[in-house]
């Protein structure tokens, strides 16, 4: 598809998702009212709707977009770096580590901010641990990517076991439902404070990926070719992993472990804008923001009880993924 069309779609999608999300709920906000609110002429809008906009729906819309953009952008970077279309942001254990942090936080009865902080720290610590493990067992001249991925798999299994152990010991009436909900991901109850805490690290991580996007593309050529082109591959990869991990850990602390986005959205972006990572990373971020906002709006508006995000992203993401696979084979 032509580049201009790809960008038009990628910018129109989040705009449409925002307008759709605002219009769903007990106080529907129209596009015209939205415009009045953000241009400082909110007096003309129903005060109850305005309060909902500023305190509840607005932060939730921004949080959904931040989570979608971070997971999809990190996924696109990981797929390029690991030269594997099956790579997703949790490949090196960031989601597993964040889950362990959050589950431990819930188990210890920490307040919400404490759980979020433990999740963020757990995600960063897991990837740092995987990096250290890979460096310790790497042999000279061996494939650095393979060792990294295997270390991620090993640490992920260990972390999964600890999470299961905590679930066994958790209070089945209070803690276990909270743990289960957190592990499936949700944005219900996100407020302005949560958003303001998660946004700086998430945006900083995304900024690193956006700035390095052309260099990350060179990593798709493989170690020897990239280095012969003048790329210090080990340092570049470390920087890109740090950026992706920062963004993923921050949004996982905010929304829980939302799966599938980081894997599926980059494939959709690739179909739209081609395989070139310099285009793929920003396109994935825009489409990811639109996709998760759409999913969250559905979670909010579809039933009487909110469906966890992870269930909806898998339910919607799987058919989308299969459709993309079929399109790719036909092309």
């Amino acid at each position: 598809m032509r580049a201009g069309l790809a960008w038009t779609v990628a910018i129109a999608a989040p705009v449409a998702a925002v307008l759709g999300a605002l219009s769903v709920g007990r106080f529907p906000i129209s596009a015209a009212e939205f415009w009045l609110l953000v241009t400082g002429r909110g007096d003309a809008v129903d005060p109850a709707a305005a309060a909902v906009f500023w305190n509840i729906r607005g932060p939730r819309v921004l949080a959904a977009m931040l989570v979608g953009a971070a997971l999809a952008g990190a996924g696109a970077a990981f797929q390029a770096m690991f030269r594997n279309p099956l790579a997703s942001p949790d490949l090196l254990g960031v989601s597993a580590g964040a889950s362990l942090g959050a589950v431990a936080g819930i188990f210890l009865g920490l307040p919400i901010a404490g759980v979020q902080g433990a999740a963020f720290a757990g995600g960063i610590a897991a990837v740092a641990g995987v990096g250290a493990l890979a460096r310790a067992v790497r042999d000279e001249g061996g494939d650095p990517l393979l060792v990294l991925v295997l270390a991620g798999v090993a640490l992920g299994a260990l972390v999964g076991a600890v999470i299961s152990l905590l679930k066994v010991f958790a209070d089945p009436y209070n803690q276990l439902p909270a743990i289960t909900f957190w592990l499936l991901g949700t944005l219900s109850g996100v407020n302005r404070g949560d958003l303001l805490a998660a946004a700086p690290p998430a945006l900083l991580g995304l900024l690193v990926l956006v700035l390095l996007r052309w260099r990350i593309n060179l990593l798709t050529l493989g170690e020897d070719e990239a280095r012969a082109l003048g790329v210090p591959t080990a340092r570049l990869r470390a920087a890109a992993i740090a950026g992706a991990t920062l963004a993923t850990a921050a949004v996982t602390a905010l929304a829980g472990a939302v799966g599938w986005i980081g894997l599926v959205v980059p494939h959709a972006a690739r179909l739209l804008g081609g395989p070139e990572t310099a285009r793929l990373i920003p396109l994935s971020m825009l489409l990811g923001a639109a996709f998760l906002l759409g999913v969250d709006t559905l979670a909010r508006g579809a039933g009487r009880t909110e469906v966890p995000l992870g269930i909806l992203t898998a339910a919607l993401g799987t058919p989308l993924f299969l459709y993309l696979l079929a399109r790719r084979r036909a092309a």
Partner: protein
Amino acid sequence: MSLLACEGLSIGHGSRVVAAGIGFALEAGTVTVLLGPNGGGKTTLLRTLLGLIPPLAGRVLVAGEDLRGMARQAVARKIAYVPQAAPGGFAYRVLDVVAMGRAAHLPLLAQPGARDVAAARAALARLGMEGFAERRVTELSGGERQKVLIARALAQEAAVVVMDEPAASLDFGNQALLLREARRLAAEGHAVLMTTHHPDHAFLVADRVALLHGGALEGPGAPAAMVTPERLAAVYGVPAVIGELGGRMVCAPLLGGPD
């Protein structure tokens, strides 16, 4: 001063020495062909010269400077690498692939700008590939892909061009075209080092020929002195004949065998 030189070089991985005592120098305007059997260490030597693996002993000098102390980007400004064009891979646009050669000249956070795109287009034009700029590399033939990779090396603007078996997957016609490009690169002032499985290619393009086998490098020397029936039998283990055909030397293996 030579564009690329090595002294007392031992190559290999870890504690396993593949070849030792290697020393030669590459001059501007020359094509050097590296011959040797499979597993003889040709690729290991190229990777050592490119700084992709460290030498086990000795040193590599890039325009007089020790490779070991140089940053990756500084090396890439002096030596370009043309890998064998493999099928598959990502469906990148040809112009985007050639522009990747500009990484050696761009700051870390920069994207290729108008000047870099112009350099990439000029590199494609020099290979007669300007019409392919908007195509996807996955749609190209093996010969066309190899030319795209040569264009990328040109966009890199490095004086030394190292090619690893660039002719290996090409048909008869494309092999001839590729060898002509190697010759032209040398005529434009590059120092070209290429490996090949075909001793014949040495007669076609080489100013000098080196043989890497049995843990040592022979030469480089003049093609007529290096590619002889005796040497080919020693290196490849099959008898061969060399004679004149169409005004130049050619070589062909003899099958022999049980008759």
